[in-house]
């Protein structure tokens, strides 16, 4: 990688990390919890408005078909039904849904003319109750003309004519096709010592939070304005796109966030549900509640995870990994809302924690008759980690080397940061050997190797897996367009804001621009604010701004929120502090530079007793400006707002050989699972699990550990249990929780030991790095590694997820039937 120090933006860090804090680093009980514990949190289905009616959606039974006719007359005649709406009716007023791909793939909130996946909305009914609405759905008659169903992406990529999902875009289902070279690829593959080759498969799974997507929408006839209450995010980022879909100017749609019962990315922008609810509300003149039921959500959530097949080659020279070639076919489903952003995302850390010099990505994105992909914890880098770590294990095996030593030799070393990887992204800081060492220690690695040996003697199959992976945090959003030939936007770091207010009694109000998903935004904001102002958390109240009142806010996702929120809070708190000190200096008749904030007071440094409480200062600041010296720069009141950009982002070059810096705040993890495989049934049991994460400075270790464990649980689901399984006719065979298998506690490690290492970021406030996605980004490769290690005596290779019992049993049976099966 080129040493280009002037390419790395200057840090604007104002708060350096330090040895001791008062509030940061505490495992403080969460501010969010009391109302959740007592059943008083308001989720979207808890909302009840006067006159509110209920919507249900008719789901397409076909994977691909033209809608020849829809007759809603019988549905409309059912007592209790208020209206029925077809896609054509909806398209009269509502335009295409937001799409960040360029060129876009057109998606309507209710299908018009043709359906493109099972479960896609075909019509909607509004009735006095959800029960009656569902009765009415059964009375809608649709005349279908089936079209060829595209399920296999290779087949879909070759299709023309009626097999093409979006003919207006061209006679192909290939949505994107391009090859990228970063660094000296040809050189690295010219004369390597070894080339490791694998074909790897990552099947689609998804977030499936316990709460589905919903919206309660109203349309005010007098003002021509929508109010949409929804469990969505991004309403202070691109909320205006929903207004655009509804055919109104941005200020005529106010999006109000509700608590979300989990998201993991899937609620990042719930455009379709909001537009359906709002369109129905406008049409029928009453508030409309539309809540997806579980089948609606599984089949049509617009948030399936990645679905890829990779052909990978890894070049080795002198025992070091040099070049990586990936040919990938990604099955995007029927629409393309984020373009190939998931691949841009993966390129932020495609070489992992290793000193690989070159990368070729040969990417084909194909549209098929399935629910479209969306955002799911990892957003493409989860797959990147799996691919790379499988190759690393494969390399160690083929070179007959210890997996740990091979990694250690290839690691980027602690003295090499900031580090630029071949794609152009920067890793800001890290200490990968320390993370690995800590994990090995926490696991008692040597002890487990011994136990493994004993187990093998008695015919049991125990495996220890390893994954040493990156967790990038704080996206700048260039990943959504940087793989296109034309730039979609100029440079952004996707800002985040906070506004603060101290009232005359000294209480501080923090307004957030982004929703609660089960992350801990109120607690994080409170801890950082308390650190800044030396205020008691009891005196802080956090609220959520709707889009009418909000400032810029991109919201949770991409492990960005704690970092960005910290930046916003610091910026706003600095302003507030400055003003508090100014007012206090007048009240105490002291120089501002002699004053400090301590324990909810402002006082003279070194002179206890000479101080004023926040309440006293606030009262003065609000009411008694005129008793202070005249100065136009000092106004009444105590409020501050800050829009925070982290500046560590740069543009890609025009030839796309250098993608610039786009995801630099780089966390890292080491996962070490220990599993036992029952080779007769294919069942995998966890005997131990260690996860050590480096997320820089930790604000709240307890909540971070919660994310790690929850992420590991989802990663284990992806690795062993979960799959959206489409049959050759495009029917989704796993369309309910009976068949889409989310792990219960019995399937997971009883204890996930979480360790922390902190290498602060030089770029963020306090050196914080993101950590929300990491658990899920490390578990799948770690579990694959563990299962492969367990079955090493049989010579089973793990190349595909999920490793269901049926799948594992099949691999074991094949291995046992091979004449050259390795003996124990």
């Amino acid at each position, binding site marked *: 990688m080129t040493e280009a120090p002037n390419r790395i933006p200057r840090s604007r860090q104002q708060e350096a990390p330090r040895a001791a804090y008062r509030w940061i680093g505490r495992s403080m009980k969460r501010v969010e919890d009391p109302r959740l514990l007592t059943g008083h949190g308001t989720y979207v289905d808890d909302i009840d408005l006067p006159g509110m009616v209920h919507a249900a959606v008719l789901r397409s039974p076909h994977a691909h078909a033209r809608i020849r006719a829809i007759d809603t007359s019988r549905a409309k005649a059912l007592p209790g039904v208020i209206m029925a709406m077809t896609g054509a009716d909806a398209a009269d007023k509502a335009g295409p849904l937001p799409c960040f791909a360029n060129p876009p793939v057109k998606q309507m909130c209710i299908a018009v003319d043709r359906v493109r996946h099972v479960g896609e909305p075909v019509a909607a009914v509004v009735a006095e109750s959800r*029960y009656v609405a569902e009765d009415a759905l059964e009375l809608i008659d649709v005349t279908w003309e089936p079209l060829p169903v595209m399920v296999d992406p290779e087949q879909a990529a070759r299709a023309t004519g009626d097999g093409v999902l979006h003919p207006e875009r061209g006679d192909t289902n290939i949505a994107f096709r391009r090859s990228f070279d970063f660094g000296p690829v040809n050189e690295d593959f010219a004369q390597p010592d070894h080339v490791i080759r694998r074909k790897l498969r990552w099947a689609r799974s998804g977030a499936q939070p316990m709460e589905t997507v919903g919206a309660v929408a109203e349309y005010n006839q007098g003002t021509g304005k929508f109010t949409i209450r929804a469990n969505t995010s991004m309403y202070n980022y691109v909320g205006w796109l929903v207004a655009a879909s509804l055919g109104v100017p941005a200020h005529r749609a106010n999006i109000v966030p509700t608590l979300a019962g989990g998201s993991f990315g899937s609620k990042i922008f719930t455009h379709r549900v909001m537009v359906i609810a709002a369109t129905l509300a406008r049409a029928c003149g009453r508030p409309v509640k539309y809540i997806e039921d579980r089948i609606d959500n599984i089949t049509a959530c617009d948030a399936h995870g990645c679905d890829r097949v990779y052909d990978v080659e890894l070049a080795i020279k002198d025992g070091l990994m040099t070049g990586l070639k990936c040919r990938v076919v990604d099955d995007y489903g029927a629409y393309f809302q984020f373009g190939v952003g998931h691949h841009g995302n993966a390129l932020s850390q495609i070489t992992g924690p290793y000193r690989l010099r070159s990368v070729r990505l040969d990417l084909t994105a194909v549209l098929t008759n399935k629910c479209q992909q969306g955002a799911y914890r990892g957003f493409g880098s989860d797959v990147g980690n799996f691919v790379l770590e499988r190759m690393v294990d494969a390399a160690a095996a083929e070179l007959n080397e210890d997996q740990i030593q091979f990694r250690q030799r290839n690691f980027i070393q602690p003295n090499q940061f900031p580090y630029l990887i071949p794609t152009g992204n920067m890793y800001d800081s890290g200490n990968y050997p320390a993370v690995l060492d800590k994990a090995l220690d926490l696991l008692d690695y040597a002890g487990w190797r011994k136990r493994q040996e004993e187990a093998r003697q008695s015919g049991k199959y125990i495996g220890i897996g390893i994954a040493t992976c990156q967790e990038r945090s704080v996206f700048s959003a260039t990943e959504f367009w940087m793989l296109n030939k034309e730039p979609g936007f100029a440079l952004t770091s996707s800002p985040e804001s906070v506004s603060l207010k101290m009232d005359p009694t000294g209480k501080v109000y923090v307004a957030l621009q982004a929703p609660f998903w089960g992350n801990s935004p109120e607690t994080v904001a409170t801890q950082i604010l308390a650190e800044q102002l030396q205020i008691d958390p009891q005196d802080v109240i956090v609220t959520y701004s709707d889009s009418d009142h909000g400032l810029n806010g991109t919201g949770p996702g991409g492990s960005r929120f704690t970092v960005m929120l910290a930046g916003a809070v610091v910026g706003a708190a600095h302003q507030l502090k400055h003003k508090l000190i100014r007012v206090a200096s007048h009240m105490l008749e002291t120089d501002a530079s002699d004053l400090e904030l301590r324990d909810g007071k402002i006082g003279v440094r070194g002179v206890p007793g000479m101080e004023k409480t926040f309440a006293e200062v606030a009262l003065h600041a609000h009411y008694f400006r005129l008793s202070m010296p005249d100065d136009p720069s000092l106004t009444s009141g105590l409020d501050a707002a800050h829009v925070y950009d982290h500046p560590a982002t740069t543009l890609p070059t025009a030839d796309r050989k250098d993608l610039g810096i786009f995801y630099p705040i780089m966390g890292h993890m080491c996962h070490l699972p220990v599993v036992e495989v029952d080779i*007769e*049934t*294919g069942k995998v049991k966890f005997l131990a699990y260690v996860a050590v994460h480096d997320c820089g400075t930790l604000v709240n270790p307890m909540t971070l550990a919660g994310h790690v464990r929850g992420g590991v649980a989802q990663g284990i689901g992806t690795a062993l249990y979960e799959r959206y399984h489409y049959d050759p006719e495009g029917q989704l065979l*796993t369309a309910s929780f009976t068949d889409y298998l989310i792990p219960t506690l019995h399937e997971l490690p009883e204890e996930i030991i979480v360790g922390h290492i902190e290498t602060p970021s030089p770029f963020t406030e306090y050196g914080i790095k993101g950590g929300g996605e990491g658990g899920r980004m490390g578990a799948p490769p770690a579990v694959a590694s563990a299962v492969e290690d367990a079955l090493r005596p049989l010579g089973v290779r793990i190349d595909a997820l999920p490793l269901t019992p049926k799948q594992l049993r099949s691999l074991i049976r094949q291995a046992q039937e091979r004449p050259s099966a390795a003996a124990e």
Partner: protein
Amino acid sequence: MKPPPFEYLRPVDLEGVLAALAQDSEATKILAGGQSLIPMMNLRMVAPKRLVDVNCVPGLNRIEVDHDQLVIGALARHTDVLASPIVRQHAPLLIAAYQHVAHRPIRNRGTIGGNLMHADPASELPAVVLALDAEMVLQSRTGERRVPAGGFFLGVFETAARADELLTEVRIPLASASRRWGFEEMSQRQGDFALVAVAATFDVDSGRCANTHLGYAGAADHALRIAAAEAALNGEIADETALEKAAAAAAEAVDPPADVHADAAYRKDLVRALTRRALSAASHR
């Protein structure tokens, strides 16, 4: 997902239930625990015009010994069957199987009779009653009928009960103290229906196995015994060779269904492995 509308009856005695069933029985479903019926209604997979709620009918939930039989009322909740010392003493196989049945809230409401009448081919309890040689007691307006478990489970959600009949009791012969039993199941998650489950019982007569019963869930479109496997074990000493032979015979004999979670080859593997394990557990008792 909301259920379709239905007419609701809640008779106060058995006679009321049977009278309701006698009239328009094809359009009527019995509502006991509801743990199988209500999900299907919520998914709109079934739309009965009429539900007859039997939860208020007295006398259908007893658990007691009657001469040489253990009698369990059809309306006995799984939780109560599982907690019963009488069942623990006389049908420990049932207790063992219950460790794999659903989760506590489902067991609190679900009834043994409801589960057996629902006849899901992947359900554990039909396999158990087959291994225990149980008798199903059916009542209708025209009288009582007893059907041995062996002839009761006919197909997917299909039993030998007529539409106008109510299952009132399950009668299990009291086993000799020396009768061995074993239960093994493979499911993807704890509490899920079985991919394959095996309920095994046999006597040991002069050191050799006799009267072997092997009941299976997940191996066919209904719960069944596998005679070939039973025959392979009868008369043999229960050593590793014999168990493996019986297991192989079982795997050979079945023609299992395939679904997204398990294909036929995998189910055969499971039949073989779990038969051997269940018999092994039984022989070590």
